[in-house]
């Protein structure tokens, strides 16, 4: 249905509407992927991240930092304090245009 498309149902559709001024360097870094692999069966960051930045690829974590909203949830919510979290370089990262 056409009406549904513009209501941005999926996270991909939602993210498509957001403006990002991407840096070339990631501001997010998983400190030790071995911790994700061996100690963190639930991999919560792949669930609660509102921008679907973290994707577990079987043996490693893909970090799509380009789509990050810089909310801070992953830094606070990772049970192993396993995410190094910085702000993107000044002027870079997410650029909200409205609210």
């Amino acid at each position, binding site marked *: 249905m056409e009406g549904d498309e513009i209501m941005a149902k999926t996270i991909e559709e939602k993210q498509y509407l957001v403006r990002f001024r991407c840096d070339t360097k990631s501001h997010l870094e998983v400190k030790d992927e071995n911790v994700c692999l061996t100690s963190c069966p639930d991999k919560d960051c792949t*669930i609660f991240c509102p921008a679907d930045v973290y994707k577990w690829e079987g043996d490693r974590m893909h970090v799509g930092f380009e789509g990050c909203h810089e909310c801070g949830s992953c830094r*606070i919510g990772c049970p192993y304090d396993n995410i190094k979290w910085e702000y993107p370089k000044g002027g870079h990262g997410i650029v*909200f245009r409205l609210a």
Partner: protein
Amino acid sequence: MGDRFDVIVVGAGPAGTSCAYTAAKSGLNVLLIERGEYPGSKNVMGGILYRKQMEEIIPEFWKEAPLERPVVEQRFWFMDRESMVTSSYKGLEWGREPYNNFTVLRAKFDQWFASKAVEQGALLINETVVTECIVEDGRVVGVRTDRPDGDVYADVVVLADGVNSLLGKSLGFHKEWKPDEVALTVMEVMNLPKKTINERFNVEDNQGVSIEIFGDSTQGLLGTAFLYTNKDSLNIGVGTTLSGMIKKKLKPYHLLEYVKTHPMVKPYLEGGETAEYLAHLIPEGGYKSVPRLVGDGVVIVGDAAQFVNAIHREGSNMAMSSGKMAAEAIVRAKEIGDFTERTLDHYRKELYRSFVGKDLKKYKDVTHTFEDHPQYMADYIPMLNKAANKFFTVDGSPKKQKQSDIIKGFTKDKGKITVARDLIRAWKVMK
């Protein structure tokens, strides 16, 4: 940059800009540093801006500021799967001067507000991250930025760097927030023609509605959803404690879709076009999470200090008042020529004397109580709906019988004592 200022304010949100505006207006030499492309580009808010605290900074701001609609009706929905119990107040006096509150879109509003601080003489530098405070002999003397030659010095540094406050943490003023001290909130701005909004919400052009939605909107988790009217768009969002989201293995954007497609909500959004999707944390730890506020040459204001009243969704106003009070303490310190913690502590004292401190204190146990006792969201709102259903369904049984059935229904599942205890507990933390 190499210069020296009286005050450096980090972050051009409502807290930082209020502080910069007030300090600059008093004749201080102010540098306001913002990491975003422009003020507001990193900031998210459901959208209710309170007239009172804004007016104390810029009188009659509504004549000039980019506002959406003055809110004339506040609705509260206690929602179950297929029903809701509602309460509301509509008052047309709120649509006239001096107004009560307004819906705003922060990207526009923050830019305008920062430009007013610049008019007062503050220097605004965008696209610049403050990476650390420069500390000498235990005293904050300036900031380091990510610009080349990016050290700048000042008598006082104001940390208005929002909920994540990496700077407050690096100074040791607070530890990392715990997942139950923050709410993860996602929202969308949906374009909808003005005429449709007016008809659907039963208002005129310059009248707005705010709706707070409790219960099924967060699937029983501690949190709320909201729906606010802008001029020709709606803000729809939902948030719960990060700890709740993690425990329930919920994806925030799935929860948002759940709210958007809920049969009570959906008709309001019909035909709307999503224009933007936004995620942000709200500090909701309350009184007990407030960090150290003052040090030698440094103060913390706004979200960075956990100044949010989650029960009444007040954050921007506490940010503004705290920014203003910090500026006043700094002006006073300047007169004395002493910027130690002892002098700047005036800010902390005034803050706790004001509505910010008093309201935080009044609700100090609310978040913890409701987080530890999920029955308020998960059980009582459905029970309320069942009771209303029973009472208003015309099925031939007398009203007196209905009332007694309802009370029995309330106590049957949980037992009288549990219900009584829950009610007393809720009364105690809210009173």
